[in-house]
């Protein structure tokens, strides 16, 4: 039993390593994780930076400090989408069959992909922390804050990655998963990823207040702009739990559906 667990862990790690290598070897998969959110960050900080002068805006060292969390979460959502696309490509080109014929757990196919996405999440979090520091941001909570940030970001990568994987398994088509790309931004805009919820226009502001993604973003943001609070951390954990549960259920169902109806 332990041996089986260890064997599967080894497989998940190997598949995760493959996912990461794939992402680095294909610019189209890497760009949404690093390039686009970084560009958007740069432009939004320069363009909307005066927002710090708005009455009601939280006290921050700089607008960049505020925006880092949003960039990180944007990056992980897109990494989850990229991972879903890669999984769909695996199915389309038959690589998934190679995994299914091997004596490994069926779920390892999904977990391997998610392990890769989590690793990319860690990479992304560190990247944005570094970028932030280089351009003058301050991580108020210091090193423990960075650890919390990295942990939350990689967990959210797994949680959201599961949704991408679910769509990939259910449809088996990369173009469909790719079509979800705008949806990622809809969810981001309807949260406090880019702006405080209380300063957004209705009805988006109300949605943002209750969006689990907002809880996660704020959990990542607090250690950067102020202090880490138990309350915010609890809310972030709750947000992750909600998304994680949904994503686990959906991907399990999608996997079962695929195994049952099988390829031609």
């Amino acid at each position, binding site marked *: 039993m332990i041996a089986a667990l260890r064997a599967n862990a080894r497989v998940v790690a190997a598949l995760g390593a493959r996912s990461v290598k794939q992402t680095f070897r294909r610019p189209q998969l*890497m760009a*949404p994780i690093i390039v686009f959110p970084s560009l958007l960050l740069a432009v939004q900080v320069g*363009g*909307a*930076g*005066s*927002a710090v002068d*708005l009455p009601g805006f939280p006290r921050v060292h700089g607008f960049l400090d505020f925006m880092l969390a949003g960039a990180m979460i944007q990056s992980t959502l897109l990494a989850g989408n990229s991972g879903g696309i890669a999984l769909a490509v695996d199915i389309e080109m038959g690589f998934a069959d190679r995994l299914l014929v091997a004596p490994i757990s069926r779920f390892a196919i999904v977990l391997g992909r998610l392990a890769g996405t989590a690793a990319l999440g860690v990479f992304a979090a560190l990247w944005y922390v570094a970028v932030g520091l280089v351009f003058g941001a301050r991580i108020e909570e210091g090193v423990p804050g960075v650890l919390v940030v990295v942990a939350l970001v990689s967990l959210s990568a797994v949680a959201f990655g599961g949704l991408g994987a679910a769509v990939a398994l259910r449809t088996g088509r990369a173009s469909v998963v790719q079509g979800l790309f705008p949806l990622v*931004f809809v969810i981001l*805009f309807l949260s406090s990823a880019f702006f405080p919820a209380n300063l957004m226009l209705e009805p988006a502001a109300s949605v943002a207040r209750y969006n689990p993604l907002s809880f996660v973003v704020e959990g990542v943001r607090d250690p950067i702009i102020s202090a880490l609070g138990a309350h915010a951390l609890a809310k972030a954990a709750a947000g992750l739990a909600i998304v994680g549960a949904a994503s686990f259920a959906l991907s399990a169902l999608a996997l079962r559906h695929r195994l049952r109806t099988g390829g031609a």
Partner: protein
Amino acid sequence: MASRALRAELAVVGALVRRAANEILRVPGAAIPGVLAPSIFFLGLTAVFGHLTQLRGFDTQSYQSFLIPVSLIQGAGFTGAATGVNLARDIEQGWFDRLLVAPVPRPVLLAGLVLSASARALVPAAFLLAVGFAIGVHWPGAAGLAIAIALVMVMGAVAALWGVALALRFRSQSAAPLMQAGMFLLVLTTTAYAPLELLRGWLHDVARVNPATQVLEAARQGFTGGVSWGDTWPGLVAAAAMAAAFAALALRGMRRTGL
């Protein structure tokens, strides 16, 4: 003799345009993100940054009216980049070689690709305008609208030329992010989010010299106020200059593919 050659050329251009249209019709699902994305960004950014208009420096209280020209041009940027991505895919799959073997002058081939992008840019634009007016964007007046549409079409061509130049240079779909990022940067390092006085740091400096800022401001006129020739011609000149520059780049790329 000459008219036969001309007809052959037009036939090829026609086939190209038809094929581009077929792609949209054949896989309509694939076209939807391209059409919807600018509108999604428009709505999202309005909802998120809408209250910026409370700051001094904005001469309008309607952020959506301020922002819509950005989204219009972004839509043109997406459409043009897509032309480049499709060309890269065609090159990768060998289809493009067949086209090059046909006795058509390179500029004509290029024109076909670019003009269809220019026209296609109107699709997300139309959708965007509908959405915009629905959420209270000011009516720009006939002149304002005409200027905006014209500039959208020129920027669609600019984006397509950029995409084509990259496709020819890299001959692979992995250049897609570069095509998209290029246009992204061009459009957003302007007075996209806020007027010049409110821009901070490096963005302020870049926006001041970026020709796309002129284009944006010219397109924005009607939506945020009145239209005047003085505010229009810099935009037209900037757009024309960019089109010429990128056309030269694309043509050089075509020549360098050995024909």
